[in-house]
C-alpha cells in the first residue's frame, strides 16, 4: 500500500497521542491518554465503554480533543485535511448508503479520494475482500459480514498508510473472520500502520502482536500481546465447588500455595486461586481423602472487564 502522505522522518510516529482527554459535559470518556503507533498491526483492547471508539474517532479527526493533542504524521488532522489521503477508516456501526451497490459504494470512496483511475482501484479493493461475485448487489440486501467487508473495501481503496478499524469482525462468520484476519496481517506486513479495536481478547490475539488496553478511558497496559496476556493470567480466578460436605475440603484447599482465599457457603465453597490448573489437580485427591463427594466444579465467568479491572488495580 502506498497512500500519501507518509512520514519522511522515521522518527516521527504515524500516530501520536499526547495527554489526550475527551469529555462530554461531566462525563469523562478518555483521560490523559498518551501513546504512539508505528507500522504494523496494533490492537486496541477494552471492554464496552472503555473509550476505544472515542480514541479512534479522535485519531481520525471526527472528535476534537478536550485536552491534549492528536498528531498524524506529526501534524494535526483538523489543520490538514489532505492527511485523509493517507488514512482509511472502518467506523463502527452500519454507516452505508443502502441504495448503492458494493461496486458503486467503493467507487464513490475512490472518487472522493480523487484517485485517477477510480474504477480500477475499486475493483482491486473489492477483490481484496472477496466480494467481486457480489459487486452488483445493493448494500441493503447484504449480510452483516458482507457489509462489514464492503466498508473495509471502501477504507483500503486508496491504499492508505494508516488503517483504522473499529470492531471490524462484528457479524462475520468464522470463515470470513479467518480471511479477514489474514488480510489485515498482510496489510500490516506491507508496512501499513493498522489500529484495530476489539473487546474480544481472542480476536486481538489473532490480529495483533502489539496491544493497547483501555479501561475506563485510561491506558491500563500497552506493549507485546504475550507479556500482557501473562499479566492477565496472574489474576486470581474464582472456582465454585459443590460437594457432599464442602466444609471438609476447605483446610486442604487453603493450604495450596496458589490459593488466595476460600469461603464456605452451605453445601458449597468459593475459592480464589492463582492457578486453576493446580486447583483442578489437587481437588479430586482432597475430595477422595476427605470423603467429600464432588457434585459440581466450575469456574465463574471471568469477563474481560474483570481482567481489565485487575490490570488497572495493579498499576
Amino acid at each position, binding site marked *: 500500500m502506498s497512500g500519501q502522505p507518509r512520514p519522511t522522518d522515521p522518527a516521527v510516529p504515524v500516530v501520536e497521542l499526547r495527554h489526550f482527554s475527551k469529555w*462530554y459535559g461531566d462525563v469523562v470518556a478518555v483521560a490523559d491518554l498518551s501513546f504512539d503507533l508505528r507500522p504494523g498491526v496494533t490492537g486496541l483492547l477494552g471492554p464496552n465503554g472503555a473509550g476505544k471508539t472515542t480514541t479512534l*474517532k479522535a485519531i*481520525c*479527526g*471526527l*472528535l*476534537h480533543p478536550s485536552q491534549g493533542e492528536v498528531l498524524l504524521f506529526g501534524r494535526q488532522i483538523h489543520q490538514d*485535511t*489532505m*492527511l*485523509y*489521503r493517507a*488514512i482509511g*477508516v472502518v*467506523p463502527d*456501526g*452500519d*454507516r*452505508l*448508503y443502502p*441504495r448503492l451497490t458494493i461496486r458503486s459504494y467503493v467507487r*464513490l*470512496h475512490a*472518487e*472522493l*479520494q*480523487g484517485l485517477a483511475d477510480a474504477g480500477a482501484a475499486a475493483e482491486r479493493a473489492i477483490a481484496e475482500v472477496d466480494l467481486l461475485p457480489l459487486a452488483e448487489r445493493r448494500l441493503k440486501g447484504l449480510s452483516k459480514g458482507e457489509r462489514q467487508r464492503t466498508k473495509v473495501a*471502501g477504507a483500503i481503496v486508496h491504499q492508505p498508510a494508516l488503517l483504522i478499524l473499529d470492531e471490524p469482525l462484528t457479524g462475520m462468520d468464522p470463515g470470513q473472520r479467518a480471511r479477514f484476519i489474514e488480510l489485515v496481517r498482510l496489510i500490516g506486513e506491507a508496512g501499513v500502520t493498522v489500529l484495530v479495536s476489539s473487546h474480544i481478547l481472542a480476536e486481538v490475539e489473532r490480529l495483533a502482536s502489539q496491544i493497547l488496553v483501555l479501561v475506563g478511558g485510561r491506558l491500563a497496559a500497552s506493549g507485546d500481546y504475550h507479556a500482557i496476556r501473562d499479566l492477565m493470567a496472574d489474576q486470581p480466578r474464582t472456582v465454585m465447588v459443590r460437594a457432599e460436605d464442602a466444609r471438609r475440603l476447605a483446610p486442604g484447599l487453603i493450604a495450596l500455595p496458589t490459593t488466595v482465599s476460600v469461603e464456605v457457603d452451605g453445601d458449597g465453597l468459593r475459592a480464589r486461586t492463582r492457578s486453576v490448573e493446580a486447583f483442578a489437580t489437587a481437588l479430586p485427591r482432597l475430595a477422595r481423602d476427605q470423603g467429600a463427594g464432588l457434585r459440581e466444579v466450575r469456574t465463574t465467568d471471568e469477563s474481560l472487564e474483570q481482567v481489565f479491572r485487575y490490570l488497572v488495580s495493579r498499576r
Partner: protein
Amino acid sequence: MRPFLVLLRFSLGQLLAGRRLLVVLLLVAVPLVLPAVFVRGSDLDPATFSLDLFRQLVLPVLLPVVTLVFSTSALGAELRDGTVTNLLLKPIPRPAILGAKYLAAVLAALLVLLPTEAVGHIVAAGGLGSTDLLAATLLATVVGTLAYCALGVLLSLLFARALLVGLAYALLWEGAVVGVAPSASSLSIRGYTEGVLAALLSGGVDLTTRLGPVSATVLAATVTLAVLAVAARRLQRMDIR
C-alpha cells in the same frame, strides 16, 4: 472528476432518489398548474393571476416548503444515519462538503420549482405571456431558494428536527410575526424575495413591498452568505459522535 463535483453529483442523486422527485413535483405542480387551467376560461388578466399566485402561494408556502425539505435533509439525513463519516473522512475540507450539500439542495429545489412555475405561467397565459413577469418570478425564486437552502443547511447542523424548526420560521415568523410587525421583514427571506421581485418588476407592475428593492437585494445576499459562513464554521468544529 474532482471530489467536490463527485460529492455534488452524489448528493443531488440522493436528494432526488426513488419517488421523492416525482412526489414533490406533483405536490408543487397541482396547486400551481391546476388553477392556471381554469383562469383561461375567465375574465382574469393572466399576468395579474400569475403574480397573485406567486405572491400568495409560491412565496409563503411552496418556496419555503420545497427548499427546506431538500436543504434540511441534504446534510441532516447523513448526520442522522451516521453516513456523513463516509464524506468527512475524505481529503475534502469540511466547508467544501457543506458547499456541495448546499448546492445539491439548491439544484434539487430549483429543478422542482422553476419548471412548475413556468408551466403554470404558460398555461394561464395560453402562451409565453409576459416574459418580464416570468423572468422576474423565476429569478426571485432563485434568490429565495439560495437563502432558504442556506437556512435549512444551518438548521440541520443545529437541530435534530430541522425541518420543523424551518417550517415554524416560515409559517410563524414570516407568516404571522412579519404581518403584525413589518419591521421584522429585515429578518424575513420571504420579505427579501418579494423585494427582489419588486426590483425586477420596477416600472412594469405596481408592487408594494415592506423592504425596498436595494435593501432586499443586499439583505438577501448578506444573510445568505452569513448563514452559510456560520454553517461552515459549525460543521468545522462539530464532533461526530
